[in-house]
């Protein structure tokens, strides 16, 4: 086992990420989270800050194919990884079918949790293209919505899966 160099909280560390398909290199302080870096350094504010303890899901992003609460991931831990945020789902100004379904099914009220919900749902469908209602509810249980759009969010995921089958 090699000895890891000691990192102090105030030290900055060079990291490289691919964020929404774009390579980004930067110096980050060791204590800063991936959420901090996305929001403050890259000004990608789609990932939201709410509980900061990994309970609300508002900061959900996809890291190398799996969803994480970016408030719980240190930026240095994410070094070398590929990150997808809510801003990175639509391409060329076209919404994904899932994003369209969120709007059609009425899954969006205030919208603050929605980037996290969309990212989680996107990853869920990538892993399970044909989920049941129960699987959706369980899969999205880590994304709180205080407006209470849970039924409509499930409807959007189901409609997207249905659309993909057609």
């Amino acid at each position, binding site marked *: 086992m090699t000895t890891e160099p000691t990192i102090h909280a105030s030290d900055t560390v060079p990291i490289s990420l691919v964020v929404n398909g774009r390579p980004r290199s930067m110096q980050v302080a060791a204590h800063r989270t991936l959420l901090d870096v996305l929001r403050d350094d890259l000004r990608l504010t789609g990932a939201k800050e*709410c*509980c900061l303890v990994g309970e609300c899901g508002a900061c959900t992003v996809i890291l190398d194919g799996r969803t994480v609460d970016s408030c719980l991931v240190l930026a240095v831990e994410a070094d070398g990884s590929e990150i997808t945020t809510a801003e990175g789902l639509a391409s060329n100004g076209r*919404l994904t079918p899932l994003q369209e379904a969120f709007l059609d099914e009425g899954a969006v009220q205030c*919208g603050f949790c929605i980037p996290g919900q969309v990212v989680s749902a996107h990853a869920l469908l990538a892993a399970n293209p044909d989920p049941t209602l129960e699987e959706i509810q369980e899969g999205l249980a880590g994304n709180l919505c205080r407006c209470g759009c849970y039924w409509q969010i499930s409807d959007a995921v189901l409609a997207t899966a249905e659309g993909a089958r057609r």
Partner: protein
Amino acid sequence: MTTARVGESPQRVGGIARVTGHQAYVADVHLPGELHAALVTLPVAHGRIVSIDATEAETLPGVHFVMTTADLPEPMPRFGPQFNDRPILAIGEALYHGEPVAAVAAESREIAAAAARLVRVEYEELPAVVTVATALAPAAPLVRDPALRPDDPLAATNVLRAHRYAWGDVETATADLVVDERYSFPIVTHFAIEPHAFIAAPDGDGMAVWSSIQHPNWLQKILARLLGLPLAKVRVFAPDPGGAFGGKQHAKYEPLVAFMARRAGRPVRLVLSLEETFQAVRRAAAEVRVRTGFMSDGTIAFQDIAADYLIGAYADIADRVVGKGSYPGCGPYRVPSARIVARAVLSHTVPSTAFRGFGNPQVNWAVESNLTEGALALGLDPLELRLRNLARRGEPFIPFDTPADGDWEQTVRRAAELIDWHGPRPAGRGRGIAIGIKSGPTTGLSYATVRLLVDGSVVVYSGTSDMGQGARTIFAQIAAYELGAPLDWVTVVMGDTVVVPYDQQTSASRSSVLMGNAVLAACREIQAKLRAMAAHLHDVDEASIVVDAGVVRLPDRELSILDVLKPGLGRLGGELVGNGESRKEDEPEHPLGGSAAFFEFNCTAVEAEVDRDTGDVTLTRYVTVSDVGKAINPLQVRMQDEGAAIQGLGHTLMEHYIFDDAGRIRNLGAIDYRIPTSMDLPLEMVSEIVENADGPGPYGAKGMSEGALLCVSAAVAAAVRDASGAVIRDLPLSPERVWRALHEPARVPEEVMR
């Protein structure tokens, strides 16, 4: 091109930015040169501040200053929507766990937070009252210095105000059965997923403030007074809030950041943590005694309600919550004799404020539960008992207030039908039903400006805040419909007090009705101008022209609005501007200062199963039916109803603040305070609406965003009792509480007598 008519459900205006992560909430706004603020608080509920030493904090590199009361004007400026009682920073004593006593301004958020921990506050812990019982005890410490309440007969108590409403005579009324019970409702918090955020920036000779606020114009007034500025020099930007639910109605830390920005000469931002929002906003707890007299056939003879609401250390809007929330306490029923006494009880807790339902859910929980208990004691069907007493359309059920403004029986019967009330109960399941009612706004003033541009596109200016209820979409639909524009040719401008005309507030489910009427009136003014144009262009009598739903009807033909607008405006082009105003005047003689503009009416019916081993409650079917007059956007109505129901399930089944002996909140934050997730839903939810176009809003709409939350608790508790026999009068119906009710010796109802 999106077309949408009234009564259809187009995609939400502003929806695309929300699903792509581009919607900018206050915390997403950054200004050049901004400083970051952090609050300094004490780890006690009540403490006398002996000294504050900021020396060490101020030496930390990147710290600009530590603001204390010494840096604020003397006497300390105070503010609040009802009383000017809240100081900008705690002065002399901190009165609740989380009250800021100082604030740091620094180059970064991390530095500000680190410096806040270095501010040395010497304090003496003082006795705190955090429950109704301790606050009302004879020797209780007074939350409010009596010197601040001159000429107030209640100054030597912790009662801020007592509201009394009565009719008939409860003292002499007789009944076959009296059910006299006490019910409690816990402290819960809004838990908007967006924590409150504030930015203030010197703006020329004035101040600009960004806030996730529901009432930008009210905030503007408060800031203008505190800062000594004319209204025109206080520019409030109110980006759409990320959830508000009443918690963002009134000023919180905007005055503090404004004074910090003035001192810094630079922008200052403060983004609260979720924990800090728990210490900024919450719903009042309540202890409610209800004594209902019934005749043997179920007719209500009298009702005697005493509700003590535990408000916080400062009034915020809580006293209004108490007064207005308890006023329709007897529900939508014929109650010949009634007495309602509701007290706002000060305590060393976070100031309670408006929260969806505005004081009604607390009393509703008690009164509706009491009605179910009465029905069961009389051997009557709880549904039939309600129907027997329910006010019919036009009946003045609360004397001197607006008479019943809907066919309420229709709503109740529909809910009963959808839960199959009279059908056999599946084994192990029980059913409950309850009714909720809430007074809409008692006063109101909304202005709207609409511009019809030369190409037929439309700009609407409205001071409403779109906090998720979908106000932008509603106003866009109204303007699109009236002016014949595609929906995506309508821009709705909100949230800037320099640009948008005055609106009193976004509360009480008023906006579709009051602002909706203002937008409609502005469109009608434009239509009148179009009529004059068409009359001139086609040489016909103006009175013979009708503009309706985007079409100009002349006696002999129909024209599109553009056919009139373009030639009418002529070679220079230009636009047509309409202004609309919508008022609900106050009524000084009314106990609330005004009668209800409308009532929100909802019936909720629930089927539940109870796990006797764990006390866990599963809602197998949930029905919510609201009388909305007319759904301008049916999908948004459904979202509001279902969202309100799910929010109500939070305080019904799981949410409550827990205090330690020192009055500190022990369950701050998302780990220890649980709100409903996608795993906490009923197995099945059905929401329907009743539409009789009998509301005062556009096309017969009524306000509707709170109704479906009002009676959730009583319906669920009734179903739990029906399923398991557990009689519970304290919320939330947590598994532990349900289990205890099932397994510990039954409490004999104390004061049920025949």
